[in-house]
C-alpha cells in the first residue's frame, strides 16, 4: 500500500484544520449555508434525508487492517456502528453530525485516510481494479499510477470548481473490472516496448443520459498522463455547460462537440502542456511503485494438496470456493471476495464488528490489506490456498461467506429511499425482497452468473444500466414503480441494457425477476451468459415477463 511521507501527511492535516475552521465559521453563522455547501461537499459531507453523511475515500479501493479498525471505531463512536461501501470504493457513514466531522477527519488522518473530493464538482476519488497487482490477466499494476493521479487531483487549484463531478477509473488488465467505459475518463494501461502506455476513454457516464465512452487517445506514454489529463479537464472546465446540472457532465460536452472536435481541442491544449513540468519522472514512478512491491510470497505448489479433500468433505466449502475465488498470478495463492450481500443485509453495508473482523482476517490471511470492489464487496487479495478452509470458517462466523459472488443476489444497490433525498424508491427493500425470493442456493447456482443492479432514481448510483437485469425506481403519481432494463453488462465490451416495457409496481418486482429468469433458463444455450441470450433472442421474448398473467 502507499505509505504517506511527511508532505502527504501535512497536506491532509492542513485540510482537516481548514475544514474545522470552516465548520466553526458555519456554526457561528459567519459562513453562509450556500457558501459552505461546496466546501463541505468537497470534504465528503452530504446532507441527506435524515442526517448528514460523510463519504470517506478509499483511494483505488486499497484499505489496510489498521484503517479498517479506525473506520470501525469511528462508525461506533460517531455513527450507528455501520457503514456503506459505495460503487466507487468509498465508505459512507450515514449518520454523522457535521460538528463531529473535524474530529473524524483528524482520526482518519492518523491512519492516512481522508474524505477529500469524495463529492462536489471536482475530480473524485480515482477508482481501479480490486484485483490490481494479483490478477493473472494484468499487464501493468495500475496502483502506482492511480496513486500518482490521486496526488495530482488532490486540491488541484484549477479544477476544484468544474461544471460537474469528474470520475476517473484506471485499469491495467486485459479484462476491465473498473467500468472504464462509463466514467468521465477511463484509463486502460497497456505496455508498448516495455513502457506503460495508456488508452484514454472519454465521455462515458450513467445517470439520466447513459453514454458509453469513446476512445480519445491510444498509446499515450505514461509520462504524459498528467499533462494530457490537464488538457482534457481544462477543455471541460472552460467549455462544459454550467446552465443545467443534468447537461454539465463531460459526456454531454463530448457528445455536443463530437469526438473529432473534442479531440482537436484537447490536442491543441496538450501541445502547449506536453513535456512541461507535469511530465512524470522515473524517480517519482519508482518512489510510488516501491509501495506496491509484491509482499513476501511463499514458494507454494500451484495446486494445494489438501484442497480437493477439504472440498469433498465439506460441500459448503466447495460451493463457497466456486463463487469466491479469483485466480492469482502467484502459484498457490488466490484472491478471495468476501460477500457483503448476505440475505437480509443491505448490499454493501458492513457493521463495525465486521470491519474489525475483516481487519483481523486481513492480518491473518492477506498481509494486512483488503480491497473494496466496486460491486460493493471486500477482497482479500493474497490468500494461501492451503489456508482457504480456515479463512472460510472464520468468514462464516462473521457473516461474510455467503457463496453468492457473481450470482443474482450479489446485487449492486444504492441506499435509495432509506437514506437518500433524491430517491423515488426503496431500493434496499426491493433488493431484500429479491434476495428473499431467491434464497435457494441451488436455484441461484443453476441460474449461474448474472448481475442485477438497482438504483433508487435516475441518477443511477446503483449502476442499473449496466446490470444484466437493471431495476430503476421511478415515481408514478406518488407511487413507487420500477422500470426494468435487460442486457446491460460490465467489462471490456460493457454496454447499457434496454428498457423492456412499462414500469411495474414494487410488490411485483420479485415476480418479474423470476419470470425473466424463467425465460432465460429456458432459452439459453449451454454456457450462454444472460446478455448473450438477450441479444440473440431479443427483448420481445422478455416483454411478457412484465405481465401479471405470465405463465
Amino acid at each position, binding site marked *: 500500500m502507499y*505509505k*504517506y*511521507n*511527511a*508532505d502527504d*501527511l*501535512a*497536506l491532509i492535516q*492542513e485540510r482537516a*484544520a*481548514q475544514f474545522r*475552521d*470552516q465548520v466553526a465559521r458555519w456554526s457561528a453563522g*459567519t*459562513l453562509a449555508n450556500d*457558501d459552505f455547501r*461546496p*466546501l463541505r461537499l468537497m470534504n465528503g459531507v452530504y446532507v441527506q434525508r435524515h442526517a448528514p453523511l460523510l463519504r470517506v475515500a478509499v483511494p483505488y479501493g486499497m484499505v489496510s487492517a*489498521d484503517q479498517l*479498525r*479506525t473506520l470501525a471505531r469511528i462508525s461506533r463512536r460517531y455513527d450507528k456502528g455501520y457503514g456503506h461501501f459505495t460503487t466507487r470504493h468509498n465508505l459512507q457513514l450515514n449518520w454523522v453530525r457535521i460538528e463531529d466531522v473535524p474530529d473524524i477527519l483528524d482520526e482518519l488522518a*492518523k*491512519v*492516512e485516510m481522508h474524505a477529500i473530493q469524495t463529492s462536489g*464538482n471536482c475530480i473524485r476519488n480515482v477508482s481501479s481494479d480490486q484485483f490490481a497487482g494479483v490478477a493473472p490477466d494484468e499487464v501493468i499494476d495500475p496502483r502506482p499510477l492511480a496513486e500518482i493521479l490521486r*496526488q*495530482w487531483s*488532490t*486540491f*488541484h*487549484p*484549477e*479544477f*476544484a*470548481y*468544474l461544471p460537474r463531478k469528474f470520475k476517473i477509473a484506471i485499469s491495467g488488465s486485459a479484462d476491465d473490472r473498473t467500468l472504464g467505459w462509463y466514467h468521465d475518463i477511463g484509463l486502460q494501461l497497456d505496455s508498448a516496448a516495455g513502457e506503460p502506455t495508456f488508452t484514454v476513454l472519454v465521455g462515458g457516464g450513467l445517470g439520466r443520459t447513459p453514454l458509453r465512452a469513446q476512445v480519445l487517445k491510444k498509446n499515450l506514454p505514461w509520462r504524459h498522463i*498528467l499533462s494530457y489529463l490537464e488538457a482534457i479537464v*481544462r477543455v471541460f*472546465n*472552460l*467549455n462544459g455547460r*454550467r446552465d443545467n446540472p443534468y447537461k454539465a457532465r463531460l459526456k454531454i460536452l463530448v457528445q455536443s462537440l463530437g469526438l473529432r472536435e473534442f479531440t482537436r481541442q484537447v490536442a491543441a491544449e496538450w501541445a*502547449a502542456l506536453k513535456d512541461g*513540468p*507535469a511530465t*512524470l*519522472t522515473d*524517480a*517519482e514512478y519508482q*518512489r510510488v511503485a516501491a*509501495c506496491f512491491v509484491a509482499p513476501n510470497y511463499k514458494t507454494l505448489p500451484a495446486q494445494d494438496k489438501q484442497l480437493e479433500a477439504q472440498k469433498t468433505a465439506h460441500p459448503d466449502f466447495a460451493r463457497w470456493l466456486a463463487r469466491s475465488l479469483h485466480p492469482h498470478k502467484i502459484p498457490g495463492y488466490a484472491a478471495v471476495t468476501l460477500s457483503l450481500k448476505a440475505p437480509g443485509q443491505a448490499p454493501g453495508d458492513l457493521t463495525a464488528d465486521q470491519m474489525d473482523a475483516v481487519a483481523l482476517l486481513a492480518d491473518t490471511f492477506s498481509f494486512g490489506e483488503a480491497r473494496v470492489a466496486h460491486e460493493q464487496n471486500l477482497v482479500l487479495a493474497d490468500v494461501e490456498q492451503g489456508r482457504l478452509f480456515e479463512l472460510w470458517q472464520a468468514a462464516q462466523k462473521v457473516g461474510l461467506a455467503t457463496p453468492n459472488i457473481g450470482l443474482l443476489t450479489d446485487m449492486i444497490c444504492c441506499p435509495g429511499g432509506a437514506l437518500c433525498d433524491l430517491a423515488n424508491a426503496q431500493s434496499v427493500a426491493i433488493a431484500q425482497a429479491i434476495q428473499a425470493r431467491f434464497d435457494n442456493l441451488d436455484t441461484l447456482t443453476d441460474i449461474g452468473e448474472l448481475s442485477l443492479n438497482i438504483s433508487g432514481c435516475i441518477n443511477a448510483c446503483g449502476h442499473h444500466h449496466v446490470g444484466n437485469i437493471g431495476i430503476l425506481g421511478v415515481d408514478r403519481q406518488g407511487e413507487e414503480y420500477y422500470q426494468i432494463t435487460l442486457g446491460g453488462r460490465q467489462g471490456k465490451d460493457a454496454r447499457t441494457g434496454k428498457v423492456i416495457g412499462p414500469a411495474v409496481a414494487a410488490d411485483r418486482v420479485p415476480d418479474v425477476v423470476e419470470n425473466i429468469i424463467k425465460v432465460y433458463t429456458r432459452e439459453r444455450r449451454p454456457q450462454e451468459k444472460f446478455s448473450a441470450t438477450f441479444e440473440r433472442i431479443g427483448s420481445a421474448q422478455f416483454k411478457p415477463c412484465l405481465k401479471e398473467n405470465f405463465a
Partner: protein
Amino acid sequence: MSALIKYVDGGFNLSADDWQIAPRDAAPQTLPAGNWLYPLAVWQAHEKTIRAQNKRFGLWLAAETLPADLSKLKVQDFAAIALSFPKFADGRAYSLARLLRERLVYTGEIRAVGDVLPDQLLYMWRTGFTAWALREDQNADAALALLKNAAGQHMLRHAYQGAIIPPAPLFRRNATQTPLPNQTP
C-alpha cells in the same frame, strides 16, 4: 467598494483600490478620468479611443471568455485584468488566469471580481491571481486571517501539483521522500 486584497512581494495585504469596472455599454470618452477596467466588447469597439485617452487601462473578462478571444489581444498593454466569478462555484476563471500567465506570459495584475470569497482565495492565488475584490458582504481583515494557519504559516504549503504557484509539482521540488513510521500503535 470593499477593500482589496493584493499579493505583493510574497505577502497578502490590504490595499486601496484605484480601479473601477466600466459599464458594458460604456462610451469611453464619456467616462470620467480614472483607472477603468473595460469589458472586452468595449475594448474591441473603442480600443483606439481608449489608448489615446488613457495611459493606464485594464480589461474585464466575463467567465465565458474563451482562449481564442485572449490570443487576439496584446495582453501586456493592460495594467490589470479582472476575471469575473458570476458564482464562486463557477471555476472557469481559474483556467483563464492560468492561461494568461502561462500561455500569454501576462505579468500584470490579475484580479478576481464578483462572487469572490476567502475560502477560494488560495486556489486563485495558485492559478495566477494577485488581487481580490471580495464580495460586498465579506470582511477583508477576516479573509486575510484565514490565509494562515495557527502557526502563522500560509495554508496550502504542501501542494502536490504544479500550477502558477508553485510552477513545479511536488515530485520535481524537494519532496521529503522518507516514509513516516505507521501512525497507529
